[in-house]
């Protein structure tokens, strides 16, 4: 019996040793976040779960390059790029704690702070919005005035707020048809005007055989509605616990964007690879266009890369107050602790 006990003890001790040695190099922090030690990297990495706004495409090339080129690791981060969670809204992802960092439109971010300031802008990717309203000249649309009374295919989620504000501000009554990402309602003439991003759906229309000269294009940013859209947002609680990691995430991502802009073909290779892995339709010409147009919205002028400008924020608050009954006065520093004081 003694040898059996000795053997049993040895097995138990060996199992404990094995369990200890096989345990991942992770330590749980006070807030429940994990520091993960990557093999071959001797420093602890802070794990961030990032939720992109849409499926893989060049709109997120900077994030992909930051990950694939190891820029996040250099900033001490282990970033998990989550798949598209169609069933869940980005706000819900933050609320439920499914994601740490999400992509949000500035107006939408302000809109969800009607009761309390529970989310924080940690970085502003796009300094300029890329929203266009396009109509076919063949359908009699040759000016903004021709929009009146026509059907507008408008995104039912995401960046619809600026379009609504534009229509209200310009006093253009239109019949709104809520749509998802499809351009087919427009190509099939079910709607007369459609809401598109210059870097994405607009080029899809061109690739569907619609000629640029056959389109009337209203660029909202050039019509006095220059409100930057995409930014990075976290819960206020998350920011208060990890301000340095939030800043590191934004800085690393913008480094990724700079790398993507200076190595466009490599960035497109990476984007197309990810699209193919996710079984998403991909053609390089479209992704090249998208990367090129993203550069125009991310870096319209030099300086303040990745930071929300105070004036842009104030303009957004003003529009929301005027057209969307927003009544709170949230200080810029509270909404965006790392913003640019201009």
């Amino acid at each position, binding site marked *: 019996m003694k040898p059996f006990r000795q053997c049993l003890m040895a097995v138990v001790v060996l199992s404990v040793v094995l369990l200890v040695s096989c345990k991942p190099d992770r330590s749980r922090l006070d807030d429940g976040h994990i520091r993960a030690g990557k093999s071959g990297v001797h420093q602890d990495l802070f794990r961030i779960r990032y939720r992109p706004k849409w499926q893989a495409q060049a709109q997120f090339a900077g994030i992909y390059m930051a990950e694939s080129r190891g820029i996040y690791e250099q900033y001490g981060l282990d970033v998990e790029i989550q798949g598209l969670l*169609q*069933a869940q809204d980005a706000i819900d992802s933050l609320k439920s704690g499914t994601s740490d960092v999400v992509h949000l439109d500035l107006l939408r971010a302000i809109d969800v702070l009607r009761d309390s300031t529970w989310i924080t802008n940690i970085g502003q990717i796009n300094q300029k919005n890329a929203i266009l309203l396009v109509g076919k000249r063949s359908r009699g649309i040759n000016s903004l005035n021709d929009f009146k009374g026509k059907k507008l295919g408008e995104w*039912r989620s995401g960046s619809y707020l600026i379009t609504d504000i534009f229509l209200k501000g310009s006093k253009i009554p239109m019949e709104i*048809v*809520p*749509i*998802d990402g*499809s*351009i*087919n*309602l427009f*190509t*099939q003439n*079910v709607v007369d005007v459609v809401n598109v991003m210059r870097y994405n759906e607009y080029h899809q229309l*061109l*690739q*569907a*055989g619609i000629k640029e000269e056959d389109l009337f294009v209203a660029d909202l940013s050039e019509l006095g509605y220059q409100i930057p859209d995409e930014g990075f947002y976290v819960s206020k609680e998350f920011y208060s616990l990890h301000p340095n990691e939030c800043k590191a995430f934004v800085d690393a991502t913008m480094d990724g964007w700079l790398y993507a802009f200076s190595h466009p073909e490599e960035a497109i290779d990476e984007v197309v690879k990810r699209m193919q892995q996710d*079984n998403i*339709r*991909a*053609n*390089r*010409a*479209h992704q090249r*266009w998208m990367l090129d147009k993203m550069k125009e919205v991310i870096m319209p002028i030099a300086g303040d890369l990745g930071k929300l400008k105070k004036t842009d924020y104030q303009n957004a608050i003003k529009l929301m107050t005027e057209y969307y009954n927003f009544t709170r006065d949230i200080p810029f520093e509270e909404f965006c602790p790392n913003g640019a004081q201009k």
Partner: protein
Amino acid sequence: MAHRSEDRTIAYQLISFVFAFMLIIFLASILVTRSLYHDIMLDNQLDNMRHLAHERIYLIDGILFRVESIARISRSVFSDYSLTDDERAGFLREILMENPQIHSICIADKATEGKPPLVMFTVRHKLTEREVPGHSYQYADWFQIPFITEEPFWTEPWVDTDGLGELIISYSLPVFETGVRTGLLRFDIRLSYLQELIAGSSYFKVGSSFLVSTTGTLVAHRDMDLVMNHTLFSLKQEYSEPSLEKLGYAMISGEQGHLKINGKSPFGRSWVYYQPLLSNHWSVGVAVDEDYLMRDVYAILMIQTVASVLIFFFVAIIIYARVLNVSRPLKRLALAADRIGGGDFDVQIPESNKSHEIATLSNSFISMQASLKEYIKNLRITTEEKNQIRGDVIFASEIQTKLVPSNTKHPCGVKELRAYGILEPAGDIGGDLYDYFMIDEDHFCFVIADVLGKGIVAAMAMTMAATLLPSIAPHVKSSNELLKELNSFLCRNNIESNFVTALLGIIDLKTGKLQFSNCGHVPLYIRKMDRSFTKYGETHATALGVFENLNIGYDELDLTIGDELILYTDGVTEAMNVDEEFLGFTGLEEILRKLPAPNPETTATMILESVHHFARGSSHKDDITLLVIDYKHPGFLED
């Protein structure tokens, strides 16, 4: 750049010419053949492509129309009969099971009442049904477009996430109850099913059928990487090939026709025939590689090329052999000509009867050889005679030279005088003369003369004058009388009637008195020690040897110490430069002004050099004679 002579042989030139000529004919024939056959072959192949496209369209339209028909019948059953939900579902289950080409059916007939759509599909012949959760379906094309338009609608391919997650195309048609739109029925076909139908064509070994949707999307193509990823317009952007865009517009516009696609895209270097489907207005294309389409033309052109090369090769060999044969006598002729050129005029000229031209050439060579022999013989005689005359002339020249006094420091040993003379005939012998001699102990006589003309006759006249003057001078002692005697002598003995210009002077060594007479000769210059000079241009008679009773005058003047008499012939003043301008008296005086202190040798030499310098490059030649005498130069006192 010059070719080496061996490169330009007759064979080389003939072969090059024939090659160039044949090349032009060959290229022209290839172009004509290609052009003619290209159109014929293209027409034939386009017929085949058209048949193939019709076949595919018949197959696909057959299925799509059948689905449309089933959908309409279903909708009619729903509207015409009061069926319960279970009966409706049961009816559609029957349809799904009996029509394998239908992948799935979605019942969303009561969407407006909030009833969730029901998707039914078969998995391994087993019916499966699933409710579609949420409301997102209302924003999908299959629902939204026909729901708004209230018209049936064929969708673009989409991923059926509520079913098996496959790419499908759907036919949706709105359902009405008592005239009110309540929802939709949707009938799905797998895209892969249509892709198999398109890929089933194997008429062409190189080429393929493809299917393009109403947005220009490639929904079926043998290159699966293109399918659903590219439109014809994105390919145009990717490959910068405008013909792809043209094809795209034609296909999405429902046109029918054919087009050549260039560039390096997957459609590059191919012909495409396209025609629309009647059901959903997609377009079927048949693409065939240009090389495959034209393979028969290329085969003909290849045969033509090989035949042309062979013909050229044989023609070149024949030309080379023939030219070698014909040119052999020419080579022998060339060798004989080389020997004649080397002086062997007796060499045997080869004769040839190979061709008329070469025989003519041989005869011409023989004739030329005889002429050359005769010419050389005459030339030899003439040369001997010329050499004899030349010897005589040289001898005469030597005699003439010896008639002229040699230059010594003091002429005739007279210490009061220095003299220096130069006689430079234009040819071997000349017609100029200068001379000086003592008449008696106190009188020094000098003369310079120029006979009209040159050569032997002039020299003979000069020789007579030179011989006569010293012999008569002791008896006459006067310059004009001496010249009169000379004139009489010349008139009596002048065979050729050559006249003579002469300037003769007598210096009285004791008194320094100079008496001189100028008969048609150029003026005398007298330079002083201060380098000033005086021109004595007056003549005392015309030239000698023309009028027998000629009156000749004279002038007298007193020479002072260091006076330098400069005498010359018209060869000096009539020296001509390259612009055919004479030196003249102005030029001569210009030379005199630049002369150093009087010294006969220096003066004579420098005048001659200056005249040569003036006349350099000119072909004009005349006898030049200079005689410079100075009187009681200070050097005399030292002596």
